[in-house]
């Protein structure tokens, strides 16, 4: 089982909690896919901040 396979059930569980009862299984799966993509975007944004933080906003973020 790779990391993606481990994460998917977790995201589906999170999705079921986040979405109201009316959400279909298809919608839950699509929402989980969106969460996975957004998690990746957030990780990329943190990396950008780490790179920029040294010379631009280091003091501000300390």
């Amino acid at each position, binding site marked *: 089982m790779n990391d993606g396979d481990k994460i998917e059930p977790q995201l589906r569980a999170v999705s079921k909690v986040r979405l109201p009862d009316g959400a279909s299984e298809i919608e839950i799966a699509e*929402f989980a896919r969106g969460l996975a993509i957004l998690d990746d975007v957030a990780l990329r944004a943190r990396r*950008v*901040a780490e790179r920029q933080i040294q010379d631009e906003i280091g003091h501000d973020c300390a």
Partner: protein
Amino acid sequence: MTVLETLPIRKLAAMVRSRKISAVEVTSYFLNRIMAFDDAICGFNVPAPETAMEAARDLDKQLAAGGEAGALAGIPLSIKDIADVAGLPSAGASASRAGRMASTDATVVARMKIAGGIALGKANCHELAFGGPSFDLPYPPARNPWNRDRFPGGSSSGSGVTVAAGLCLGSLATDTAGSIRLPATMCGVFGLKPGRDTLPLDGIAILAATMDHVGPVARTADDTRILFDVMAGRSPGPPCSGSLHGLRIGVPSDDWGVGPLMHPDVQTGLEGAIDVARSEGAEIVPLELPSLDDFHAPATILMMAEIAAEHAASVRAAWDKFGAIFRARALVGEGITAEDYRLAERLRPVLTRRLFDAISSVDCLLVAGALAPPGPLASVDSFYFMKEPIPNIVANYTGFPALAFPAGVSSEGMPIGVQIMGVPGSEHRLLDIAENYERADPSRFAAGTPPDFGNAASLAFPTGSAPMERWNHVKPE
């Protein structure tokens, strides 16, 4: 009768002002085109023939009495359904706002009306400028006039298709991550996202509070200039009389990292724009920019968090009143942490300054309008805008102006476009550059007419269907 749908706004408005043609004749002409063609492309979801004809009659009376009219005298317009037009529904293509009527005009709409513009109706769009293309909304999605099975871009899809199909001469659209420039690119017309705080947003539904912009879509650079100036509350300046000679046009030194994602036809269109500029005497300047992902990732975090803040509660309260794409997109941002949001916010001025430093030595930055030609309408990924870095959102994050315009067609005959970005306050420079491109090679850089959208008078109802039910009670004069 003269073909009106390809006339420049400047010329048609002058004809109306001098009473060579009446506003009623112009309005009636475009209403006839809408009746003939709109069923095929679903560009209007709230037609307004009665109020349009009434406004046209009032304008003609005013001119007959010796009164004056502005830069948009008699010019037919579509208004994106998230912008308020007094007396018309304003539902943003969403069942969640069905029955909502606007009591006043958005400021930019009021300015267009004061200048003599005639609102023909509300243009279709993705649900609340975000959820689409969707097939589960009160209105079917707009279709690309160059191929009705293809995506017309969004979220201002109706703005793009109504202008491209010649159902109006200009449209009011909005742009939170490319929603003016994508439909302009994919429909083969011009779309300007002005700089932040350049045009007022009151009377327009909020999507992401700090990323939203309003601006025009039109057939030519000069038409776009006129609409932009009117929306800004000033008299339009003269058309551009310069050339590309001597301009410094910046290009990202490494395709901004999107080379592998770029469709070969888009690459060809972009290279064509570079070649034409060079042959006209412009200098092409490779620029070292922060990576596109440096902008895309924090900008997406900021946008998705703001959208969740604006809409998630409404979605939870009325689940069945929203389309599935809007529901997913609006709620997914709720998981963004305060720490990530704050980082994205703090990076904003840093990256804005870096982009400013990089492009302030050139007249514009030239990049693709979209990374691929329009694909099948029915298979657009709900999260396409989050998956890969796309150039469009950079201008929303930084607040810099950006203008999309045609740059040829793909091997399948679909429009290809480029966009130029500039420093704050450079909207007119961008419009001049686009007009110079248009003039240098109209076969590539001017808007074309989709083959099935010619003379409405000679085509009863080209879709083979009866005219729209919603128009049956109205007989244009």
